[in-house]
């Protein structure tokens, strides 16, 4: 009996157990189904997504920065080049206490206060994943010293980089400009222009001068290296490589030696000089004084040096040749004379009497000639030669402002020349409309009188005046001024020439031109205002002096150099071209606060002309050799 019960229990127990096992199997089947669904989801439905993730895990695209194009003068002298050197760089993410690290580093490598200040500035501007330069151009000895101690500085590394260098420094600063680290605004611009991809890995971009204007040529095409990387970011093997293409080289129309001589001829004067070959618009020298050393700008100039440059009363950062706007003074007179002849306002033979002062009809306001007592009986030729103000007061009044602004605009005054450098200003040729718009005032006859001698509202840039002078020298056939002669591609011989064809022909009557040109030669001959300019020159110089007032004189007040602050003295102008019969060079010299054009500006012009036409090197410069950059490349 008992056995039967036990047996029954046993059977029931087995049955219950088997039931539980089936439940267990059912449970496991559910788990199995979950896994299967998950696998199908990951490996079939989402396969391409994970495939992409896996590929991007594995493949890193490393940009290879192209070498920036060289900048050479017309004779192949290097004005901007690259050299390889070592920098000491700090990775801010891997460095806990940057200040302490720099202090430690300074025991191994010389770190100046300027380096520290520059680094701080970079730190503020930087994105936090960048490594930042604390020292440039390490010597071999410094590299070795640091390498031995490197284990102490986990976030500090030495990198080999290509550096930009401007061997002429100050002398070409306004011409070449400089490159600098790409800032946020420039990043936005690059993205807007779809250039961001080509700048991956690039740290620098042209900021001013030709470096900026020809950025698209100089930068080159970034190469790409696809490498397989492991989880630690180490490259395991290269998958593909597209070589970078170096930037195009610029061959300038500038003559470096001429540029150097022009720069040094200024001595301590501030000012600008632009020399142009009138036959093709090639700019031969492009000087703005004072210059600045562009080299410290490349890796971020320190705040102190920047403030010094920025706050200097000499405004060394201002490109006077391109952007400086000054009253043209008497240098406008040859163009006024051409206007008078063009509109038949005056004949060449017509004479006026100059008592030393001019009155508008029915007015008692005095317009004085620069020469007290006047020049007596003056015709157009003599008026230019002696720079007679009274003659041009009358001429301007007779021409009227409409004719004047119309004619001067044709010579390029009041508008940008279109030179191949960014940032040009347009000067000002005043007109009735302009004055109404600007001052809500009507044009008074007195306004026209001042315009006649290049004062009043008139403003020109040295470049504009040089362009107009070159056009005059070329008998009205204008060539657009350009600094770059040729853009050389590193890959092929397909070189691009800049502006070979003439811009336009003003179609000036040859008789009119002949008179004005003869008068301008007379300017540099005895009886002219710049007689010293051509003293002993074996060629003829056509020129015109000018004086641009910085402060206006009150009625009846006399300008006396001794009573005027140095920086308020008149600016000296001299425009010239030579040889007068067959001009090869036209130039403009502006010496700020230099007084009379004939005294200061003309001798500077003479030195430049002598070198360009005769190969004559001025005495104090004789031992200065033109530095070439070839030993660096």
């Amino acid at each position, binding site marked *: 009996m008992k056995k039967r019960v036990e047996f029954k229990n046993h059977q029931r127990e087995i049955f219950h157990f088997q039931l*539980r*096992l089936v439940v*267990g199997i059912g449970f496991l089947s559910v788990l199995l189904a979950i896994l299967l669904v998950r696998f199908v989801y*990951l*490996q079939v439905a*989402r396969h391409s*997504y994970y495939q992409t993730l*896996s590929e991007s*895990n594995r493949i890193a695209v490393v940009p290879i920065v192209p070498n920036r194009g060289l900048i050479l003068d017309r004779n192949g002298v290097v004005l901007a080049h690259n050299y390889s050197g070592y920098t000491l760089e700090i990775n801010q993410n891997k460095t806990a206490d940057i200040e302490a690290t720099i202090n430690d580093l300074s025991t191994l490598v010389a770190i100046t206060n300027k380096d520290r200040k520059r680094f701080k500035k970079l730190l503020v501007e930087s994105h936090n994943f960048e490594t930042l330069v604390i020292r440039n151009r390490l010597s071999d000895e410094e590299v070795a010293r640091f390498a031995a101690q490197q284990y102490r500085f986990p976030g500090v590394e030495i990198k080999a980089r290509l550096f930009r260098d401007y061997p002429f420094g100050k002398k070409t600063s306004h011409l070449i400009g400089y490159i600098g680290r790409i800032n946020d605004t420039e990043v936005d611009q690059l993205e807007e222009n779809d250039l961001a991809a080509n700048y991956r890995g690039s740290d620098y971009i042209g900021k001013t001068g030709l470096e900026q204007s020809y950025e698209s040529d100089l930068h080159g095409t970034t190469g790409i290296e696809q490498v397989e990387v*492991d989880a630690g970011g180490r490259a395991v093997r290269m998958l593909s490589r597209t070589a970078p293409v170096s930037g195009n080289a610029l061959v300038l129309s500038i003559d470096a030696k001429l540029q150097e001589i022009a720069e040094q001829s200024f001595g301590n004067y501030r000012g600008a000089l632009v020399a142009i070959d009138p036959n093709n618009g090639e700019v031969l020298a492009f000087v703005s004084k004072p210059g600045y050393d562009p080299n410290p700008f490349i890796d971020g100039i320190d705040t102190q040096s920047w403030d010094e440059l920025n706050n200097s009363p000499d405004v060394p950062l201002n490109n006077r040749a391109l952007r400086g706007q000054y009253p043209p003074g008497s240098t406008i007179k040859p163009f006024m004379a051409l206007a008078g002849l063009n509109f038949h306002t005056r004949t060449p033979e017509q004479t006026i009497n100059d008592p030393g002062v001019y009155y508008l009809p029915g007015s008692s306001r005095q317009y004085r000639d620069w020469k007290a007592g006047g020049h007596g009986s003056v015709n157009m030729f003599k008026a230019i030669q002696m720079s007679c103000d009274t003659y041009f007061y009358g001429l301007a009044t007779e021409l009227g402002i409409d004719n004047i602004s119309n004619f001067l605009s044709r010579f390029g005054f009041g508008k940008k020349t279109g030179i191949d450098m960014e940032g040009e200003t347009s000067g000002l040729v005043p007109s009735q409309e302009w004055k109404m718009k600007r001052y809500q005032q009507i044009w008074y006859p007195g306004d026209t009188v001042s315009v006649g001698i290049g004062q009043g509202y008139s403003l020109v840039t040295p470049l504009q005046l040089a362009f107009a002078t070159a056009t005059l020298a070329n008998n009205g056939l204008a060539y657009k001024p350009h600094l770059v002669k040729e853009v050389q591609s590193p890959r092929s011989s397909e070189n691009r020439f800049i502006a070979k064809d003439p811009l336009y022909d003003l179609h000036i009557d040859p008789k009119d031109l002949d008179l004005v040109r003869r008068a301008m030669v007379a300017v540099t001959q005895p009886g002219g205002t710049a007689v010293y300019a051509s003293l002993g020159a074996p060629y003829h110089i056509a020129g015109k002096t000018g004086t641009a007032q910085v402060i206006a004189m009150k009625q009846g007040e006399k300008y006396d150099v001794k009573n005027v602050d140095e920086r308020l003295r008149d600016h000296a102008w001299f425009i010239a071209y030579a040889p007068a019969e067959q001009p090869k060079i036209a130039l403009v010299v502006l010496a700020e606060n230099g007084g009379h054009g004939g005294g200061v500006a003309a001798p500077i012009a003479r030195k430049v002309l002598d070198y360009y036409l005769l190969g004559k090197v001025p005495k104090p410069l004789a031992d200065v050799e033109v530095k070439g950059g070839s030993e660096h490349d």
Partner: protein
Amino acid sequence: MTRRQFWLRFIAHLDRQLLLGISLLLLTSLLVLYSADNASWDRPLNQMRNIVVALAFMWLIANLPLHYLMRTAVPIYVLGMVLLIGVALFGDISHGARRWLNLGVTTIQPSELMKIGVPLMMAWYFEKHEATLTLKNYFIAALLLFMPIVLIARQPDLGTSLLISASGFYVLFLAGLSWRVIGGLFVAALASAPVLWSMMHDYQRHRIMMLFDPSQDALGNGYHTIQATIAVGSGGILGKGYLNGTQTHLDFLPERTTDFIFAVYSEEFGLLGNLILLSLYSFVIWRGFIITSHASTYFTRLMAGSITLTFATYAFVNMGMVSGILPVVGVPLPLISYGGTSMLTLLLGFGMLMSIETHKKLVKS
């Protein structure tokens, strides 16, 4: 005794089907390890040694008559408890957890011993009180389970304590714990989740949080899950091919010879490989259930069922963790992952299954 007779006796207690399934899984292990170790023989050779040792123990246990097996239950359990308490008091700390006990000659991880010890003890206890099972007995059995779990969870080793809980729960379940109590426990577990949460270590909470959004911590704890999921997903249907897994060979997969070896396998062999692996596991588990249903005594039924279900749970938890549906709890893929201890524990379990299968005729009257 001829050589043939000797051979027959040698294999007499080895279950052929189970052995076939296990052998195929072990071969897979060596194959995948070679790839996971970047085509080096270091780990595969070590693993081979682990396998040989574990197989020897499996053979030994398989040949052990069941009453011996039963007799080991109490000593193993007591030893395990003593060692666990020892670990809690004097254990070595590694990776922030106190899991290892340094015995001078060797370091051991007592929690591993309890993977066998706990179900063994519980099955022994139920066998003892088979005739007069009341709710009280279930309660005591639960207590036998609870004590080591608390000690292990405190180490902290959440993965192992959960797996031992599972194996103990399977014993309770198979022993006929009433559905009402199971339902009650389930509700209680849900209710106690917030309490458990508050008791967890930060890193444990982190792992669970991460399951819901691994990208939240893509470079920290989420990294494991993200990279493993990428490996599995990028494997596709046919896989990238043996030794061609980029996630594996470029070091993106962490712990790819141990807990994450399934990602290596899945990346290189794809969905097809996964189906084959699941089939192999299913075959072994199926055989385990057959043995369980054949088992002659209460003790052996409970033991065999628990071992089989636990093995299945290990496999599911690991694959679920690697494919991103379970938190990263540090459970190796059974029979595949590199490591001697887990290999030994697993094969000891299979040895017991074989012993249960091959000694049943002797027990049956």
